[in-house]
């Protein structure tokens, strides 16, 4: 056992005289370079910001529940949707996914730590400070003009809304600087992940024998170099515009507002795949274990992921069909956007083929994965609809797009994340999460999710634009908005159950043992929680399922790979 991997539970179980002072525990965590602790900090940080982003979403939904509501002012509403989007993408989804990668990748490749442990700590703190800088805008955003607080231009920050004429005060600056700072952390994480996977694998773990989670994080890490760079470049150009009299995005002085759009979406759309690929990674580990079958089509799963990585950089302009783009340009981006459905579909078929004929065990992690499959399929189908320029001309900037996007982020990524929480929690803490509470969490969240986001499709088709503060009665939108708002409260209840389950299970959950799911990858071959050095002896592997080989020497996998 590693005593300092569970400081709170350990502290509470010790007599008061033997407990470490809280300050000392805190100091240990602040100066740590251990990939597991940094992974846990990423996740806790993301969860903290999820509370902020969730509250912002709830306030928006209350405002939209009925026509002509005055729950918040238009200015506050604008800030809410800007901060909600920015928070959820940059400071919730990314940190939590990075946290899981940080924790799991070294364990799964049989390494003792990341390739650059100190860079790992630096990357985390840059991300963390970036989030704090963003929220400091509520306090310091007014500037000398006393104008506004938090940014209010939407998370795309389209020009000219960010120009000094429209964004007085410093809220835009805090937004820009926050993303610049966290971007440095993100690139650091990407470099570290790629270097770790390429250089730190244990003996026998050739690229063809890596767990799929590791492969997918390798692709994601590589993508980070190319997704974050355009955003950082655009942020610097914006700063030059705002502070040094530049005109990159100033249409009155020869600049182009659409330049920002291109820069932002060259980052923005691959970013969606940066987020969804780790979610795919979770499914690729959880689905086989809970189907009691080896993954179907390992090589094609890897190829599909690499294909998604490449194609994702050629689809950005499907967000821009309504700007001045030539028809052949539109045709290209329609084709690319449709093409990306092919490798994505391959993955869905392969997960289904893995389940098919298996002995499916519908424990909570698997339930969330099944939910993912269903919802992500629908998200993909609405994505295919929106990929077609004529449909997008009609539905773009409507609530249909909001519904599609949240189907991807919540119905896909968040469901996979919840599955990952339930699956790896025993490894991180040594204790099982409560199954009954887990099932309550799942079913309430499924119901809440569909109540919230299904009606948004209809409201969008009925013409409801996104980002409106309120609406008049008589459009036929009111009932759908009321249902959506009700769904948010169901989701919030489910989240509260999840948080309670996390805390309750951490303190009082059943002992998990080293390998509570009878799984097959290396992280389950060390203690739960793992010691600081992960493995006393660096393991040697012969196949993609090293623990299967260990448990079944009479029928090892390497004979078939």
């Amino acid at each position, binding site marked *: *056992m590693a005593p300092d991997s569970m400081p709170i539970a350990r502290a509470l179980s010790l007599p008061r005289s033997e407990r470490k002072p809280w300050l000392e525990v805190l100091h*240990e965590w602040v*100066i*740590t*370079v251990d990939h597991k602790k940094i992974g846990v900090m990423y996740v806790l940080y993301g969860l903290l910001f999820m509370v902020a982003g969730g509250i912002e979403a709830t306030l928006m939904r209350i405002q939209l529940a009925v026509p002509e509501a005055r729950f918040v002012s238009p200015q506050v509403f604008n800030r809410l949707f800007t901060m909600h989007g920015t928070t959820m993408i940059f400071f919730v989804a990314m940190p939590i996914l990075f946290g899981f990668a940080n924790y799991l990748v070294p364990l799964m490749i049989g390494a*003792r*730590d990341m390739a650059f442990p*100190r*860079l790992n*700590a*630096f990357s985390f*703190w840059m991300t*963390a*400070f*970036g989030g704090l*800088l963003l929220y*400091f805008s509520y306090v*310091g955003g007014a500037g000398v003009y006393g104008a506004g607080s938090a940014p209010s231009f939407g998370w795309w920050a389209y020009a000219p809304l960010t120009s000094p004429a429209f964004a007085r005060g*410093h809220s835009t*600056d*805090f937004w820009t*600087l926050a993303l*610049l*700072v966290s971007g*440095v952390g993100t690139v650091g994480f990407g470099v570290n992940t790629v270097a770790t996977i390429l250089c730190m694998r244990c003996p*026998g773990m050739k690229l063809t024998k890596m767990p799929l989670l590791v492969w997918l994080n390798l692709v994601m890490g590589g993508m980070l170099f190319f997704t974050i760079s355009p955003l950082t470049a655009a942020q610097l150009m914006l700063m030059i515009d705002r*502070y040094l009299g530049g005109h990159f995005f100033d249409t009155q002085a020869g600049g182009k507002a659409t330049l920002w759009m291109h820069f932002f979406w060259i980052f923005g759309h691959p970013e969606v795949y940066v987020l969804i690929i780790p979610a795919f990674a979770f499914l690729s580990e959880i689905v086989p274990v809970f189907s*009691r*079958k080896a993954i*179907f*089509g390992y090589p094609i799963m890897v190829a599909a992921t690499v294909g998604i990585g490449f194609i994702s950089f050629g689809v950005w302009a499907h967000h821009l069909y309504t700007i001045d783009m030539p028809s052949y340009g539109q045709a290209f981006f329609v084709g690319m956007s449709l093409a990306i459905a092919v490798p994505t579909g391959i993955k869905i078929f392969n997960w289904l*083929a893995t389940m*098919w*004929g*298996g*002995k499916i*065990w519908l*424990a909570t992690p698997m339930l969330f994965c099944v939910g993912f499959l269903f919802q992500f399929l629908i998200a993909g189908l609405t994505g295919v609809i929106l990929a077609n320029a004529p449909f997008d001309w009609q539905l773009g900037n409507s609530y249909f797009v909001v519904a599609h996007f949240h189907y991807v982020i919540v119905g896909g990524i968040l469901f996979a994340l919840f599955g990952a929480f339930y699956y790896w929690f025993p490894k991180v803490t040594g204790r099982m999460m409560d199954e009954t509470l887990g099932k309550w969490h799942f079913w309430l969240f499924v119901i809440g999710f569909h109540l919230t986001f299904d009606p948004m499709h209809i409201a969008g088709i009925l013409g409801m634009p996104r980002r409106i503060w309120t609406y008049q009665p008589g459009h036929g939108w009111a009932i759908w908005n009321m249902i959506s708002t009700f769904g948010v409260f169901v989701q919030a209840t489910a989240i509260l159950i999840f948080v309670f389950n996390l805390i309750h299970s951490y303190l009082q959950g059943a002992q998990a*043992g*080293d*390998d*509570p*799911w*009878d799984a097959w990858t290396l992280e389950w*071959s*060390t203690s739960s929680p793992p*010691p*600081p*050095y992960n493995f*006393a*002896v660096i393991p*040697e592997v*012969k*196949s993609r399922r090293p623990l299967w*080989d260990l*448990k*079944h020497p009479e029928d090892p*996998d390497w*004979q*078939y790979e």
Partner: protein
Amino acid sequence: MAEETKRAEDLPREVEMPSPTAWPIVLAAGITLLVAGLATTVWLTVLGACLAAAGTVGWFRHLYPHERLETERVEHEPFKPVTERPEVARRREVIQEGHRARVPVEIYPVSAGIKGGLAGSVAMALLAMLYGVVSHHGIWYPINLLAAVVYARPLLVSSHQISTFHIQLFLVAAAIHVLASLLVGLLYGAVLPMFPRRPILLGGFVAPIVWSGLLHSVLGIINPLLNQRISWGWFVASQIGFGIVAGLVVARQGRIHTRQYLPFAIRAGLEVSGRPQDKDPGEGQQ
């Protein structure tokens, strides 16, 4: 037992790990304050620059001339590849025939799909012509309508003209009918092994009804003129006729085993090693 003891003796007693350090957080804080000064006060930038410099130097000195490491004592608890959780133990017993199988393990040959498609096409053609006779439009009416899927002229002529024989329309309709029947037959050949219990129910009823429903819901938008001339009851009947005949023909063909674990090179017909039985235990250790 002796082997286990020896293995325990071989274990290292200590492992060196990177020592914790505050310099990364100092550097991160410095950079953050440095840029935050742009939107607040220059003094914050100065403070941030100082912290960043201190962080950089401290980090450098942490690594050079020698990386600072800390020693972790190894507490050896041998991994037990068995979990006592009853939920897991229960499931372990029901594994494991086919735990590695790439289903379906048996499929129909391509020829089965072709035969099924051709047989189905005959059944569908007979039903369509029967409709022509019963509805008094004549046997060429459904054929001309089928040609109208890609060739709009028949929809623009009178009802009398659309019921008469036209060689171009006949050739177009025959090509569509044979090609589509072959493709659907091949699809049945590929899909039916995945539903071995009820192939006729799936191929004969479920698939045709789903397809007809889909077409019915969109044809009015895609091609309203064609939509007006279709008798949907007969349309569904002919689809079901195709499905049942094609399904029956496909299901009666002999199945063949898939080559489960053979490497691609061998499946492609190349003479290479790599069959499972060729491998020896040392091979996996490379």
